[in-house]
């Protein structure tokens, strides 16, 4: 099967700093790919090249190709807005808008001009159900999203992404601000979501990568050191540096 996303020799510069060095990898459809590595290794930067979120940072420059269904997303003719609709993102800190729960979920469809075609009530319910949050908030849809707990807020942010029905969901350390119980819920949720979505998750929690992902890439100092099946990476890493990292010798 063709990869959902393929990067070819991606180099990324922030000003004169070379943050990503010749990163090539393939991300399989309907599976979870985890990117691990110590802080500052470039894994988040790499994730943000996949939906062009780095575009908004002044002084950023990218070389190489990022193919989504074989189409280079850095082509001039490509519509970034359309791309970000197909490749959604969940951030490290839960970042609901200071609006009601309903308005948070309805935001994407509204901005994409879908609110006339769709029944927003249905979209909101479906998205919240898919994010395993419906039962907890169904009676309070008009309440402020900011009144939810951190874990609920993060699931709300996932629901908000689901509402625009992307193909790929990028998650940038989605559990680092959450307690273990909330983390577990999000991990279970991710497993459910692979039925319909391709997920790429950045995490510095190696156990999390081992628990949830099918594939793992190990980043170090802007380079992708090793990429393969998660079981292989964690049981018999090929590279000494990968082994050192996963056995906790640094990082």
């Amino acid at each position, binding site marked *: 099967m063709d990869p959902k996303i393929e990067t070819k020799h991606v180099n990324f510069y922030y000003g004169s700093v070379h943050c990503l060095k010749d990163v090539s990898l393939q991300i399989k459809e309907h599976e979870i790919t985890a990117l691990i590595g110590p802080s500052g290794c470039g894994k988040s930067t790499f994730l943000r090249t996949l*939906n062009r*979120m780095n575009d*908004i940072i*002044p002084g950023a420059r990218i070389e190489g190709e990022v193919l989504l269904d074989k189409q280079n997303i850095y082509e001039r003719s490509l519509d970034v*807005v*359309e791309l*970000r*609709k197909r490749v*959604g*993102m969940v*951030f490290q*800190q839960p*970042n*609901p*808008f*200071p*609006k*009601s*729960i*309903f*308005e948070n979920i309805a*935001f*994407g469809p*509204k*901005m*994409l001009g879908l609110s006339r075609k769709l029944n927003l009530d249905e979209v909101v319910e479906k998205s919240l159900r898919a994010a395993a949050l419906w039962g907890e908030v169904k009676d309070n849809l*008009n*309440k*402020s*999203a*900011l*009144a939810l707990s951190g874990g609920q807020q993060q699931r709300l*942010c996932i629901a*908000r*992404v689901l509402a*625009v029905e992307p193909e790929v969901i990028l998650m940038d350390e989605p559990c680092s601000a959450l307690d273990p119980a909330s983390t577990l819920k999000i991990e279970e949720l991710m497993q459910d979501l692979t039925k319909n979505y391709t997920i790429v998750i950045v995490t510095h929690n190696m156990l999390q990568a081992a628990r949830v992902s099918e594939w793992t890439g190990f980043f170090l100092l802007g380079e992708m050191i090793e990429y393969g099946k998660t079981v292989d990476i964690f049981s018999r890493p090929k590279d000494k540096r990968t082994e050192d990292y996963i056995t906790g010798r640094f990082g």
Partner: protein
Amino acid sequence: MSKMSAKSTQKLAKAFIWGSGFITVIILFLIIGYVLARGLPQISLSFLFTAPQGGLSGEGGISTAIVTTIYLVALTIAILIVPGIGAAIYLTEYAKDNWLTSIIRYGVDTLAGVPSIVFGLFGFVIFVTVLHFNFSILSGALTLVCLLLPTLIRTSEEAIKAVPRSHREAALALGSTKWQAIWHVVLPAALPGIVTGIIICIGRILGETACLYVTMGGSSAMPTSLLSGGRTLALHLFYLATETNAFEKAMATAAVLIIVILVINTIINWLSHRFQARMHGGA
């Protein structure tokens, strides 16, 4: 030794800060209390609803000044809002950090420190004379717009900057355009700060005299259009204080002015809170 001195420094600082706050409040209450005590007894329905008669004795009321003030505030704010907030959005969201924007920022900061009479003279030349708006509410409003633009731009800029970047990123990552992110997420979140800026501007309009003296004339007649001249409450107060011996009337006018400012601030604060509550889903 050093422990003791740290503790006593702390105490001293606390006393100083307390004292400063206390003195500020006392001065505030003294002024407002004095004006209200002298002015309030003079206020009556006939004072509010009759026009000033002019003359050395300052006979009559302040009806025309109230109407002129309302017109002037409404017109000035109406003209001011779009370019003021627009420039703030441009500077924060679109402008690149280069020599052009630093010149704009420098200009904005400098203009904010120019005395209002200088704007008055500018307004007199451009709006009153060259553009033939004569002494009018329109000339006064346009002059005030020039005077207040820097203030509104700066306060709005700060309010917009204070909206976390994560809100913008969340909106963009959901496939919204940059403008949608600004309009639907950034501006609503910045609104309380922007409203504060507008309140500051209204306060300055109500208090301004010098630049209106040379752009609105000072007619005590009821304005019939935006091209009518007129006098605001503050300007009327200035005339009463300098050209008549009606000191009690001046105090009454000042009391009305203070009450108007309090009422406007209260209403706008209330509106802003209501809007915020709606934004936050009524929680």
